[in-house]
């Protein structure tokens, strides 16, 4: 599983990244978490509002810090 956290580095984006990493560790999921901060890359992925989370090429959440429960459901928990 490949998880991308998109955000130029605002407070909410960092919070999202921390949350995702925690959730992955907690679920023991085999997931690769990358943070994308480059504006061009973010725009190219079709995301309009950050922070956004992409799991295996599917945009799961944009413009907000997701809830832990949501993250767990993406991880198949």
């Amino acid at each position, binding site marked *: 599983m490949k998880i991308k956290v998109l955000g130029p580095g605002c407070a909410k984006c960092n919070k999202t990244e921390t949350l995702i990493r925690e959730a992955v560790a907690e679920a023991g999921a085999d997931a690769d978490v990358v943070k994308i901060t480059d504006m*061009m890359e973010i725009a190219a992925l079709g995301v309009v509002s950050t922070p956004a989370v992409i799991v295996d090429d599917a945009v799961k959440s944009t413009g907000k810090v997701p809830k832990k429960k949501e993250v767990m459901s993406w991880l198949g928990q």
Partner: protein
Amino acid sequence: MTFISTHIRRVNKKTKAGAFLAAGALSLYLWWLVYRSLPAVAQWLTYDLLPLARGSHTGASIEFFLYDTPKVMMLLVLVVFFVGIIRSFFTPEKTRAFLSGKSELAGNVLAALLGIVTPFCSCSAVPLFIGFVTAGVPLGVTFSFLIAAPMVNEIALGLLYGLVGWKVAVIYMGTGLFIAISAGWIIGRMKLEHHIEDWVSRTAVAGSSVEEAQMTWTDRLVYGRDAVVEIIGRVWVYILLGIGVGAGIHGFVPEGIMASVMGKDAWWSVPLSVLMGVPMYSNAAGVIPVVEALLGKGAALGSALAFMMSVIALSLPEIVILRKVLKPRLIAVFVAVVACGILLVGYMFNLIL
């Protein structure tokens, strides 16, 4: 069996909604009781608890601070909560889909209005800009959105209403929308599309479709509560600083001194207010308490509005961020057009009031 369980669930849902409503009404009533007693509490704290004399400079400053801080915070909690619920119906993605292919003028008006209710963080201005333009939202319409979103918002509305009164709040909202609509329209008319950085049009944008979960009313109430926690958590420092500076001005700056600098008789007072505002980086939360204090010391409303708008709408950090997608000429046009709009608003109000 299934019939009975759905029935029970429906009843449960009803009682839950009823409980929510009752709790809401009760908290509104409590809010009102506390809000009403704020002036008395501030006076008691300042003059009875602290050894300060009525009418002294320090006393006036402290009382102002102790009254305005909780008042503004309480108003903000209320406004942000209800606007948060409205916002839960909007996303930038929906706004983009709605605006793409819209004609000019109608598009400008819609974009400015949607700028008020669409959740937007200035840190994602660049992806938003690219997302809008590549999806076929006209450049001028995109600008109307980008000008209105930070300028006309619930924080400005709540603060102006609480500190300066509803008339100025309405004037600010109206003129802010006017500037966003007309500046966007003018930029659109000027056909400056080729002054967008080249890499933007080369960016192949993936069609994004967010899987959207259906929100229930409970979700929306939670969304409103989260907005309160998030926004108040972010702006309370600015508000304290702003009210602190305002309280200092209130107690120590002599009456009428602002009349000479920001009064309506001097023709240069409006452009000066705009120039002073650009390098200052603050949001509505920090600047409005200061503006309120300036108004109390004889600043003209037009000059004060111009100062406030230029602090919020024309800030150097935002210009630096936008420089990533706009060529210098387009940046210059953007700043010039918005500045002209602000000047116009400033002169207009100095003239008629």
